[in-house]
């Protein structure tokens, strides 16, 4: 099982962690809500929990709880610019369908 991220995503995560001046890494996760079942979590992490899995990606720790990992295995975190819009995107091979906006999805 593994989680990865692109170099564009890594650059941005490093920049944001530096600006925030604290935090051990970022958390990727899923939770059940939204118009189509599940939605993504993307947060700074100050303290990882004991049960968390940690994937080192370059100099950044990607932290994920074991339950979310089931839904996110094989996911690549990317940073994309679409015109003026920019931000992180989960490239998740497990997704069967998502709501029109992509903010929530089904496995």
């Amino acid at each position, binding site marked *: 099982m593994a989680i990865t991220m692109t170099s564009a995503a890594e650059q*941005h*995560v490093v*920049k*944001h962690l530096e*600006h*925030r001046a604290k935090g051990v890494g*970022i*958390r990727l*996760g899923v*939770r059940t*809500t*939204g*118009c189509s079942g599940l*939605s*993504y*979590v*993307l*947060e*700074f*992490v*100050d303290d990882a929990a004991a049960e968390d899995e940690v994937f080192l990606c370059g100099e950044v720790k990607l932290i994920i709880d074991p339950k979310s990992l089931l839904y996110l295995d094989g996911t690549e975190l990317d940073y*994309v610019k*679409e*015109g*003026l*819009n*920019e*931000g*992180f*995107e*989960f490239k998740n091979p497990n997704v069967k369908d998502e*709501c029109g*906006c*992509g*903010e*929530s999805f089904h496995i």
Partner: protein
Amino acid sequence: MALLQISEPGQSPQPHQRKHTVGIDLGTTNSLVATVRSGMAEVLADEQGRELLPSVAHYTSEGVSCVGYEAAEHNISDPLNTLASVKRLMGRGLADVKAFGDQLPYEFAADDGGMPKIKTVAGLVSPIQVSAEILRKLAGRAEIAFDSMLDGAVITVPAYFDDAQRQATKDAATLAGIKVLRLLNEPTAAAIAYGLDQDEDQERTIAIYDLGGGTFDISILRLSKGVFEVLATGGDSALGGDDFDHAIADWLRQQIGMDGDLSPIQQRILLEAAKSAKEELTESEQVELQIHDWQGTITRPLMHDLIDGLIDKTLRACKRSLRDAGLTSDSIDNVILVGGSTRTPRVGAKVAELFGREPLCNLNPDQVVAMGAALQAEVLVGNKSGDDMLLLDVIPLSLGVETMGGLIEKIIHRNTTIPVAKAQEFTTFKDGQTAMAIHILQGERELATDCRSLARFELRGIPPMVAGGAKIRVAYQVDADGLLSVSARELTSNVESRIEVKPSYGLGEEEITNMLQASFSHARDDMQARALREQQVEADRMIEDLLAAIYKDGDALLDKEERRCLKVAIEELREVRESTTEHRPLARQIESVAKASEEFAARRMDASIKSALAGQTLDEIEKG
């Protein structure tokens, strides 16, 4: 596809719940829009990657044709329909605007609301409409960037903007369909961008030196427990980095030996050469120039000679503001540089010398205000939880109401933090009075005529009662944007009347300072004037009451001689009231009339008790 941002631990938004907010720096020359992404404030660029938006709109007979860079290109070919620098006009009256007539090329027409409109081929256009076009353009940029509607914006205004100018800015946002989360003072926004508000325990004093293209502002703020208080503002609305360019261009012109009037094109060439020389000299020690067949060198020391006089002018304004705030330069904890013209290293060096400390300048000085506004918007909309940044501002001048005798009763004192609501009870002056005029004033002086009139309204339908019988509660409320609403309610009948204050013309920073200064320099006169007016009101009341009493009970209770004496005493009082400019003689006269009428008052009291008791048994009286 919605793209994600990194949230603080435990604060990932629900799908579709993330609120999209921006901070907008609505500037005189240029405007910007910023937002917070993954905890960082970032300025949003347009499709061409340009971050600034010139605050310019161009009008054709069809209406607005374009806004921003495109509009600015019409500046020379169609100056009357290319509206720039309208921020100078926001919330101003026609008289104020005529005062800067030579700075702006437009033709103005009065409007019923008092704010001037600009004559264009598209008809009359108000400064609010032009500002709305600029705001709409910036909001549109943000909505493309978010791929979503905007949930709200924080818009910045100069610290010295008064109620009318703030309201005009809010009106422009409403017209552009933007929800204003709040208006924020520009220097406060700069301090937030540098995170100075995060250190809550420490009280600190901050100077914000803001040198734009055409304006200079200095603000002294005090930050304590998350509250920003404006201690003093100052500046020069006609001094900026453009003047550096002009100074260098004039020198170039002398060197080249261009005489007579220059064509607009020649002028432009000189100015552009001057500007690029100025910009290159921020990095290098000297720059080679070639204009037509002239060749020359400008060194840093030469440029300093040309612009030092201008910089010194800003430093004098800084010293004045320090004096106004009652501070010395070494009591300033932080100095922040704002505005593109502070990139000239000489400016930073001279500011550092004045304040005796290195100014903060690591953030882009063009962007710092918009960034602070974006951070504030993020908090206000609740994306960032916790009230770790609950910002408050203070009102710059006291707000009050005119009372009898043309005096001002201050309801909310200056430097009170906003939002604030305060009320005071007033009563009627005459028997049977059914209406009361509420005159809302702003200022520190004691007489209404020396303060600034903001609005008037009337409370009608007060039930007729004896003088002093009605209870009228006048409530002043200032919201978080510094906008004032006033209500008056008669408490026994609950009749109510209210007004939102949109004063018809604005006050400049200088006028606010002058009003404050005047209140100090006239303190003694004001005290005497107030004392005199109070005695005059007392005299009027006494004359009125006595005449009414004589009319009613004079025949029954006074003999001819007593009546003559009282009449004479009243006449004397009236004379002194009209002639004296000192309150003491009037007070003595009031005293003597009171003595002269004592006996009469006692008899009236007896008579009224007798008539009240007449026809009642002792029993009834004891029970009652």
